């Protein structure tokens, strides 16, 4: 059997890490989930997981924020797949996400519908 795809959740909020993990399980995605609590830790882990991890990044984090982390990850590896997600949608942030090289930008709702959808479509692409 092929290795299961890896998903790395980088979010400073523990609730978001746990709930998103649950939502991924509930959606029936066959993936291996890892987590990181900050941009700095996330970039390190992303480097170890190269090349096949899908990285889910929160935009707002103390220290290195999601946009910076995304840029760093993309600098290490153009082909990493990064989803930037946020609780507050904002057109300026969306443009920033694009400029940082994000593959997707989506909103975190209670059921994480958009984030899970983005992971799914990156796995199949």
């Amino acid at each position: 059997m092929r290795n299961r795809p890896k998903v790395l959740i980088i979010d400073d909020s523990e609730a978001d890490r746990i709930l998103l993990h649950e939502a991924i399980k509930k959606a029936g995605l066959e993936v291996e989930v890892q987590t990181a609590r900050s941009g700095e830790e996330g970039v390190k882990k992303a480097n170890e997981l190269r090349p096949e991890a899908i990285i889910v990044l929160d935009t707002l984090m103390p220290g290195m924020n999601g946009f910076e982390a995304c840029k760093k990850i993309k600098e290490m590896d153009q082909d990493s797949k990064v989803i930037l997600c946020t609780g507050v949608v904002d057109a300026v942030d969306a443009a920033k996400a694009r400029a940082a090289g994000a593959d997707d930008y989506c909103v975190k709702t209670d059921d994480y519908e958009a984030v899970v959808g983005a992971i799914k479509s990156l796995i199949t692409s």
Partner: protein
Amino acid sequence: MARNRCKILIIEDDPGFRELLTGILNQMDENFEVRCGGSYREAREAIQKELPDLILLDIYLPDKDGFYFLEEFRKNGHEDIPVVLVSASGNEKDKLRGLELGAMDFINKPIAIEDIRARVAFQLRLKKITDDQKWACQKTNEGIKLLYKELEKKNKKLEQLDQLKDEFVSMVSHELRTPLTAIKSSLSVVYGDTEGRLSADQKRFLEISRKNIDRLARLINDVLDYEKLKSKPVGFKMAENDLNALIGETVRDFEPIAANKNLRLETEFEADLPKFALDRDKIMQVLTNFLNNAVKFSEKGKIRIKTARWDGDTVRVSVEDEGVGIEEENLPKLFQTFSQITNQGFRKPGGTGLGLAISKSIVEGHRGRIGAESVYGKGSTFYFILPLRVGK
């Protein structure tokens, strides 16, 4: 990644020139994906297969000319893919026509390599900016739509909870009323027929119980009234009434209470007031609430009850006291549910703080408006304004 590889389509009938252009582009950036076509037909096939990021288009083609292709391309909705015309003519008329049809730029033959590089780079940069903006816009819209959906879901849940709360409150109030009535009548039996058998103290305590049961009953009635009004703002018994007469009656009932506190009641009635449709009991309830409060929150002076014609076809009823008054910051809170304001230097009188909220729904049920003005320490005026013709 697809996003990083720029796709450029060259439409040019001269094979030598095609090769030259391809070479220049590949030299510029090895990531460019260059495809070519030699005629209008091949151009159409190419764009049907995949849309490029930039098209270099020769004006002179063997089957149909470049203008024809350009016009059709734009008409088919491909507005944001830049097309640069390549022509040997250097003809001003051709340039104007190209611009009109939606070309973004021109390259003249014979070509200068630097010129081509600069123009291609510029068009691709513009294209990227447009693409990025479109992407950001689309992602934002998707997010907003989702948030909106979620908000609606939460709102529905809140509405359900609110309804559950209403049902609960009204059920509990109803359930409370029955035992209360039983206690009240039993108590009045004891209180009534025990001449001599009760000590003065026992009587005093019985009296206290009776007063507090009355108060409890009033509170429960208030809650029930409010819930009823909230769930069914209609259900008013509207009938033609003489407002002045109705107010006169209500005020007369208050005379003993006012006299008790040495307060004078004064009335001033608008002489020219037609009868009009209102719910007599409900409007009396509002007035009673106003008068009760005026008496409760005054220690001296007079209370003026006045009716007057108001803006348009309306009448304003006001109750003005010379009591403790209300601080300005508290005025907006007055008509909210359960709001009781601590009037300084005044013992907090018992009540639910529902009276004014109920009054507000009654007045609004008549399509009227309720309000209050006050100078702290000088007195307050509570008023409501009713339309003289409700509905058609």
